[in-house]
């Protein structure tokens, strides 16, 4: 995932020299991008917890036909989100118009 460099000034005092690629969370010392790592960890833990709960409390899980499928909700979450995002990204070209000044902020 590359980004072309903007008009920003390149501070030589920045830690590291010239080899940055934006968005790579693992390459830098961990504390620099903790704000990316932490949410990812939370999401993983949350998902895992959910799966564990489902497995443990299987008895409660007969409410709907889809509950037969294991980890249904995880898949449903992933797939429906992907679909939704795909629809939105496609619609963006149609429904987003250029700014006219003064209507925002």
């Amino acid at each position, binding site marked *: *995932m*590359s*980004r*072309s*460099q*903007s008009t*920003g*000034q*390149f501070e030589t005092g*920045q*830690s590291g020299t010239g080899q*940055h690629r*934006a968005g790579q969370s693992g390459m830098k010392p961990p504390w*620099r991008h903790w*704000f*990316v790592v932490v949410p*990812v960890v939370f*999401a993983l833990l*949350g*998902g895992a*917890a*959910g*799966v564990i*709960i*489902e497995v*443990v409390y299987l008895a*409660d*899980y007969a*409410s*709907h*036909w889809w509950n037969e499928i294991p980890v249904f*909700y*995880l*898949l*449903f*979450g*992933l*797939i*429906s*989100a*992907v679909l*939704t*995002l*795909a*629809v*939105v*990204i496609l*619609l*963006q070209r*149609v*429904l*987003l*118009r*250029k*700014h*006219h000044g*003064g*209507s*925002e*902020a």
Partner: protein
Amino acid sequence: MTMDSMATSLVSLPPSVLLAGGALLIPLLPRYFRAAWMILLSILGLAFLWSLPVLQASEFCVVSATYGNYSLMPYVSDPLGRLFATIFLLVLITGSLYAWSLDDRGESIGTMLYGAGAVGVVLAGDYLTLFVFWELMAIASTWLIWSRREVGSTAVGVRYLIYHLLGGGFLLMGILFQIHSTGSIQLQPFTEGISWGTLGQDLVSNPSGTLGPLFLLLGVAVNAAVVPLHAWLPDAYAKASWTGSVFMSALTTKSAIYVMIRLFPGLDILLVAGLVMAVFGTIYGLLSNNVRQILSYSIIAQLGYMIAAVGVGSEMALNGAAAHAFSHILYKSLLFMCAGAMAVYAGRATLVEWTDSQDDSMDRGASSHTQQWKQPDHPLPWGLFALYMIGALSISGVPLLSGFISKPMILESLGKAHHEAGLLILIAASIGTFLHTGLKIPYAMWIKPRLDSASGLVDVASQNHDVDDQASPETDATLTHKLPLSQWLAMSLGAGLCLLFGLAPDLLYGWLPYPVKFSPFEAYPISESLMTLSGGFFAFVLLRKWLYRPGRVLDLDWIYQKGGEPLRKVVVDTSWAVFGAVDIVVQRMASSMTQWFRGEKGTGPTPAQRFNLAQPSIESAIAWIVGTMLVIGLALFL
């Protein structure tokens, strides 16, 4: 206890009257006292309200009055009304704290009157009172839009006002039809619903009885932002004043929900409408690029949940709708408060901006490679992030926060009523909500700028290497934007309430109109929530690059924004043409007759006699008189 003795005691003073009366004193108070006054009166209103007894089964009329032949019940204390009034007063308190340093008397007065109207609506027992407070809300909230005083604010406010007066007009028509057909002005639920199949026959046999509920529904639907009557909401809420939008997000729409729960429980069409709203709001929320606009579409989506629940109509569903309204106000007001704070730091309200000023040079085919993420003016503090995420995770339905206590209730009620497709749609919409409020906004505002700055895309303005020591703004000389303490307090209070009700839902459940047979802390809701959100999270991680794009969202208001001018032309130009044609003919006749009498030759009416619709010439006016007579006379003899 008889009604007479209640009516004479002070605590039976309706909170709406308290607030409206208090609004009169605002001009006299110095700046910081105004917010304190609002808070004080809201607390007092709460105290009065809660000191009154409330009956479970029926309504308890605190104040009664008569108007002509109709007996009014302006102030009714029942569980549903009290619940809504409570949350309204609570949001008035937190919002006023947020607006502590507001120096705009007009806006303060408008806010109090707006609150008075909303509380009045939910505590009303008859249609006249309801209507009076409904209109009060419309006008007061328009003022909050105009208080923004931007270049475009006038137009936004006028659109909003017209929309809401139109909705109020529909409501009034419905009320009048109702009075005419039932003879009673008191609020009665339409328990039989509306039979769409026999609508045509019913219209003929019982016009006012049929049209009454229809127009009432229409009027309420405008305020509840039912698609396709929703376009006013993103338009207005994104452009109102920063302090005003906090209140607006709570009051107008939720009072409409209250009326829906009251009047139309179980109306089948509401289920469909709610589902449409949930999907629509979610998609548009993901499309939008302006923080408050995203939140506004999110409101539409959440309203969809509530309306769908009203459509299901079971006790659990109605409980769910009311509970969801309550918790929604808690987290939405927090989110709007944070939006204001975010704008202070970021210097803008949009997520993504082109960094070069030539928007037009961007052609459609360009991918995100050329898109530049413009840094916010000042890095947003992590404290604000925490507060924001409490609101965002609440709306997403994360356990232990306030959204989780109400959304599963609605979902389960849909499940129990065997609306499985609807249930899946709502779950998908819920994930979408998490995507736009819980992921898209914070990523753009907190995560991405810091990623960019860390990897070398640094603006000259923010020379910060490590964004972590922005925790204390005072230490950085370049950071001149900071929030007043009152706003931090207000947001913390809001977040605290979200946590409170999230951890102890029985507090809220005790206030719900029907007995609650639901507990969110069961295996099923918890795991469902965790799993779906987790799935959504990773979907976002995958696709985030393509999600952001600046621009204005195209919504249905395009129709009347673009269509207003042509319509005006059609109406005015046609009238002009008609009157003009007559005028020219008559003028010619008159001048040629004059010339004939004088024995001259002539050329017709002079330029000086040209037509003016606002003031037709004498000749044409006479022609109209004679013409009218002839037409009527001809019709008579034919």
